[in-house]
Every structure is written in structure tokens, then in C-alpha cells.
């Protein structure tokens, strides 16, 4: 082996040359193959009506996003079953109802797998409608692939601002406002109540970071003094030291922006630390109320502020889909485990698709996008008013600020305390 004995050299060289040329050839083949596949565009621009509308999506049955992803998918399924019961979804381009078929692939909360699946939905299943999985992390891999293949991405809850760029028409945020505008009602509330010395603790991730930045900007502009503006790792689980350092500053309001585990840890350790703040805000109790009730009970939650998602708002007259009461009835009948904010988001995705298909002049992806631009501002659903900007980012469907009031037994009652909620309770500040 080491002694590359001379007699074999020429043969080896010929070998090498052959190999090289073969390799080169195959690379050319690869180039053709990939370019041909990358130019595969949506095949949905056919003149004759398709026998069915295929909706392709990825979901996570396991991993860190499963809790949110599964109910969101159930919500979408509910919409599909309701439409198919009517003989299909109404497609304006053909003036008739066409049955809907769902292709849902499991990405197990892994963004790489999600990317592969989006690619498969586009290049192999050639779906008519491409719907993203829950959340920014699992939506991200779809953004560029969709754009590259000229597919409109129905982004359900990927609220990261970087997704929305000028000149990319192939994305629409359906069910939630971009995270940066979530805190608007909260900021206004603090300013209106002349709360001084606000403390902000936020997780080191884009979801919490963008909210923190918005709050920081708005409050500073209004001359509210920030006694603390701390960023902590998303993995933080011990807040007692931070809490006692905040207590030393006697803030008029403490805003903790985290993911669910952060919020749970913060509220638990706040309670056991015996510290009392006149106002405490955290992000997730409003979205996972029953979970937080089981973890903290009435004592740990009462008078805490949070985002009041539209799940807690009652819309009586809507322009698309069912009004709140009827929707909740259907949802709890079909998917009892999805009776929460995310179930509503998934259902609302369906409604946005429905609006797009009704108003689009053809099934081409750009036609769908234009249709949504048209309905933007006057499409009202159980999720509020759908409104997108030129980049497809959601600027409607705002989340009112809500407060948790002591309820019966060990439960609390979430009541919106600011617009745009249809009915508003009066907030309790400072908390007793």
C-alpha cells in the first residue's frame, strides 16, 4: 500500500482519468436535473377546473412544538370538513365548489425535516395551497423554498419579521399579527395609566426580542422610565435572583416576555419569593390558560396581565366562516383537545384560504395573493379583522391586553381590558 510500486502507476493514471471524466459527466447530469427540478413551478394554472383542491402542510406530532402544532392542524381540518360537507370550497375562478384534500406531513418539530417536507409538497405532490407549520422556527425553512418555486406560503403563526421582505409576494401571515406589534395595546395601557418605572425581562429569542424592542421604543418615546431591560437566555429556569433584583427597584410594572416554560418558572418563583408587584405581565397564560391554571392556580395567576387572544373574544357578525359561538360548538364537538387559541388559528387559516379561493381570478399563486390583498381590511372572522401590508405581514387581528380575574374554585377568568376586543372589562391596577 505505501510502496506505490512503479509498474502499476500508468494503470492507476488511466483509472484516474476515466474516473475524472465520468465524474465530470455526472456533474453535468446533476446540473440539468436540479435546474429542471428547480424550475418546476406550480402546475395549478390549468384552464379546466381541477377535480379537487389539495392543501399541503407540515405539522409536528412530537417535539417542542407538538403542543401548538397539533391543535392548529385540527383547526384547519375542522374547516376542511365543514367545507367538504358543503360539497367543497367555493372557487371563484370556476364559479363552483371543489372538494378539498389535505396532505399533512409530520416534521417532528425538526426544521430540517420540515424543509424537506415543504420541498416534497411542492415538487412531488404539487399541491394547490401550501400551508406552513406552527411557529417561526418551522415556518422559516418554507419561506425561501416557496419563493423559489413561486408558491404562495400561507404562514399561519410564523410571526418573525425577517420573513417579510419587499419584493417577495409569495408569503401571507394569516392568523396572528407580526410579533413586533403584539405589545401595542400593552404599551398604550402603561402610558395611559401613567405607570412609572417599568421593568422588562425578555428571553433571548426573536419572538420575545422583537416584542421587547417595540415596548422599549414606545415606552421611551412616551417618557416612561425603564428601571430594568434585561435579556435572559431562553433556557432560563431560575428567576428568583432576577426577581429580587427587580424588587429592589420597586417598579410600577414588571413585563416578563418568554416562552411558556419561562413564564411558568417566573410566575411560580414570583409567588414563592413573596415579592409583590403592582402589575405583572407575561405572554403565554392567555394562550395556554388551562395549563397555567393547573401549574399556578388562582393564587399564582390572579390579576396577572397577558395577551387576550381572539379565542376569548366573542365575534357575532363575521364576513367569513362561523361566528365565535357556533365555531366553538363545532370545535369542541369535533376536536375537543383543540379547543384553545391554536385551534382557532388553524380554523382561521382555512378561512383565509377560503377568501383567497373565492376572490382569485385563477388558481395561480399570484392570483391568490392578489385576492388576499383585495380582501385585506374587510375580511372579518372569529380571529378579528384580517389586514396585511404590502409584504404580506399581518397588521390586523390585534391581540387586546387581558387580565386574569379570580374565578370559581381554583380557576381564573381571562377578560380583555383594552381594544380591539369587542367587549372590555375594567382593569385592576395596582393589583391587590
Amino acid at each position, binding site marked *: 500500500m505505501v510502496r506505490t510500486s512503479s509498474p502499476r502507476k500508468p494503470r492507476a493514471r488511466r483509472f484516474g482519468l476515466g*474516473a475524472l471524466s465520468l465524474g465530470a459527466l455526472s*456533474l453535468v447530469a446533476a446540473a440539468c436535473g436540479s435546474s429542471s427540478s428547480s424550475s418546476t413551478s406550480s402546475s395549478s394554472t390549468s384552464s379546466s377546473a381541477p377535480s379537487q383542491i389539495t392543501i399541503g402542510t407540515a405539522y409536528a406530532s412530537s417535539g417542542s412544538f407538538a403542543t401548538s402544532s397539533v391543535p392548529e392542524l385540527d383547526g384547519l381540518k375542522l374547516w376542511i370538513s365543514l367545507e367538504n360537507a358543503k360539497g367543497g370550497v367555493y372557487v371563484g375562478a370556476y364559479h363552483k365548489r371543489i372538494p378539498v384534500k389535505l396532505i399533512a406531513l409530520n416534521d417532528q418539530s425538526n426544521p430540517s425535516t420540515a424543509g424537506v417536507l415543504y420541498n416534497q409538497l411542492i415538487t412531488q405532490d404539487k399541491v394547490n395551497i401550501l400551508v406552513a407549520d406552527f411557529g417561526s*422556527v418551522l415556518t422559516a425553512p418554507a419561506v425561501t423554498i416557496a419563493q423559489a418555486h413561486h408558491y404562495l406560503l400561507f404562514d399561519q403563526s410564523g410571526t418573525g419579521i425577517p420573513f417579510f421582505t419587499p419584493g417577495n409576494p409569495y408569503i401571507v401571515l394569516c392568523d396572528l399579527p407580526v410579533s413586533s406589534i403584539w405589545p401595542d395595546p400593552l404599551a398604550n395601557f402603561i402610558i395611559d395609566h401613567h405607570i412609572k418605572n417599568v421593568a422588562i425581562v425578555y428571553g433571548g429569542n426573536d419572538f420575545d426580542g422583537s416584542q421587547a424592542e417595540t415596548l422599549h421604543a414606545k415606552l421611551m418615546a412616551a417618557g416612561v422610565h425603564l428601571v430594568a431591560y434585561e435579556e435572559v437566555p431562553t433556557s432560563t429556569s431560575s428567576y428568583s435572583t432576577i426577581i429580587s433584583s427587580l424588587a429592589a427597584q420597586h417598579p410600577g410594572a414588571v413585563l416578563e416576555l418568554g416562552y411558556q416554560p419561562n413564564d411558568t418558572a417566573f410566575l411560580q418563583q414570583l409567588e414563592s419569593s413573596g415579592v409583590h408587584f403592582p402589575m405583572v405581565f407575561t405572554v403565554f397564560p392567555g394562550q395556554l390558560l388551562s395549563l397555567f391554571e393547573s401549574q399556578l392556580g388562582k393564587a399564582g395567576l390572579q390579576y396577572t396581565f397577558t395577551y387576550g387572544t381572539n379565542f376569548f373574544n366573542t365575534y357575532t357578525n363575521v364576513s367569513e366562516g362561523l361566528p365565535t359561538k357556533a365555531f366553538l360548538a363545532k370545535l369542541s364537538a369535533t376536536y375537543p383537545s383543540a379547543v384553545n387559541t391554536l385551534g382557532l388559528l388553524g380554523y382561521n387559516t382555512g378561512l383565509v384560504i377560503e377568501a383567497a379561493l373565492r376572490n382569485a381570478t385563477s388558481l395561480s399563486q399570484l392570483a391568490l395573493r392578489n385576492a388576499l390583498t383585495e380582501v385585506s381590511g374587510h375580511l372579518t372572522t372569529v380571529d378579528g379583522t384580517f389586514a396585511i401590508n404590502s409584504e404580506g405581514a399581518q397588521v390586523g387581528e390585534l391581540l387586546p391586553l387581558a387580565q386574569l380575574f379570580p374565578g370559581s374554585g381554583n380557576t381564573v377568568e381571562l377578560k380583555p381590558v383594552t381594544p380591539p376586543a369587542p367587549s372590555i372589562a375594567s382593569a385592576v391596577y395596582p393589583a391587590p
Partner: protein
Amino acid sequence: MPEHSASRVDTSRRPRLLNEALGVLVPVVGFSLALHVDNNELLLVYMMGYVAMAQGINVIYGFTGYLPFGYFGLFGAGAYAFGIGVTHLHWPAFADLALGGVGAVAIGVVLIPLFRLRGAYFAIATLAAALALGDIVANPALTSLTNGPDGLNLGSVYNSGEFYVSSVVLVAVSLLAVVWLRNSRFGLSLRAIRDDPYAASMMGINVPLRRAVAWLIAAALAGFAGALYAWATSFFYPTAVFDVTITVLALVFALFGGVGTLWGPTLGAIVLYSLYDIVGVTDPQAFQLIYGLAIAMLVLFAPRGLAGIAAGIRNLWLRRQEREVNRATA
């Protein structure tokens, strides 16, 4: 005597040379034509990345006995170096690709002192380093450079044709690297070091230096794989590229096929990654369970992987032959 032994060497070499030529050509040609069969280019690009990284594990573990659990840190470094090339330097994609390799090698150089540690400590020290690197990259303090936790958007350089061909080239490079190690003096010295570092150094071999070279080769492979991941995924968060699962997969692929061999890691990556996308997607927990068990079983029952099993069978067969010959002569 010598010429006799020499002739022995030759006869045993010719089929081996062919085998290694095929070991390089078959995967390269195969991946080149794959798109005409299955046009999910992302799946194939990821798979090729794992072939390269399984071979990278092969280089560093198979030839030096050092097992880097933190291998994913180099993958992430490559991905982010590529990203920084795109977002800050505005270099063309191929230059960024090179930067990805360089970035990973740079991190590899920083980690070289860890080779002072014995195997197990090295494994975990690299793991700690990789996790730390991931947290640092994701830290908002570095937003100006890495865009912190907000992830990178590289849509501007997306070009499936280019990154697919580049991936095929990467596979070729990784395979050629292993062929070289299996047939060069350098490779021989690495095997000596793996068997007995001190005895090797008493043969005049600069052990730390050669280990470092092998390590940097492995680092470069991971870096390019990471850069290609970034290029093909084009929008990702730090958690997606700094993920220990990447090491798990590359390691399982390499062990399954058998380290030290040329075909083993390639087959391991192709077979198991396809499996991962079938089993994994339909039933994820089962996937993690199966892979965990696979690792444990490999260690306990087939530490040399498919290659080892194959060798075992061959030996059994040979021994039977011998026994029959003996019976005949007796």
C-alpha cells in the same frame, strides 16, 4: 522472500483498488443522477451533507480514535460563516462556500488544544465547546454579526442548481479524502497512532501534528456540509444548525456502516437517512428510540458495523473452507 511477499501484496491490492474506485464513483454518479429519479433536491442535499459528515467522523474517529461529540459545532460554524459571507461581505455563493470551510477549520484550530485530553474527555469537551458556540452565535449581543437569535435569511443567493452540484462535489471530496487516508503514508501513520500513540512517536512520528491535520480535514468536511445546508435551507435559526442531533446522525451513519472503511459510512448515511425520512416522518419518537437502540446495539454486538459483520461472515466461510480442505486431506 521479499518478492514473494510483494507479489502477495499486489494480488491483494488489485481488487482493492477497483473497489475503492467504485467506492468513489458509484456514490458520485448515483447522486448526480438521483434528481432524475426523486426531485426533492433538499432531501438529497441534506443526505449528501450527511455522507460527507459520516466520512468526516470516519476520518477523525476511524483513523485517530478521537470521537468529537461536538462535531455539530463545526457544521454550525460552516453554516454561519457562509451566512456572514452572504449578509455582510456580499460575496458570491461559491466564495461564501469556501468561507464556510475556512470558518469551520478556524474553529477546529481553536479546539486543537482539546487533543491534550484522553478520548472520552475530548468527546465531551468538544460537546461543551459546540454548545457554547451555539449559545454565543445566538446571543443578542452578536446581533450585528450573526443576527443573534433572529436567524439568517440567505434567500438572495438561493440557487438549487449550484448548491446541488456543489453537494455532489463535496461527496466526491470526502470520499477521495478517505481513499487517500487508506492508501497514503500519512494514513498509515494515523493508523499507527490510533493503535499506540507512544510507540508511533518512537517511530519518529509527530503525533499531535498529524492528529491535528486529520481533525482539520474532518472540520473542513463538516464546515462545507454546514455551508451547503445554509445555502439550501436559506432561512434558519441558530438552533437548527447547532443541534446535537446532527452529531447523532453522522455518528450512527458512520458506526452503522463501519468506521475505517470507505463504503461503510456512505452506505450508512444513504440507507439510514432515507429510513429516517420514512420512519422518522411517520413516527418520530419511534425514530429516536430506534436510533438510540441502534447505537447501543452496534456498540454491544457489532462495534465494527456492517463492514465488521461482512468480515465476520467472510472469515466464517474461509474457516469452513479450510476445515473442508483439512477433512479432504485427512
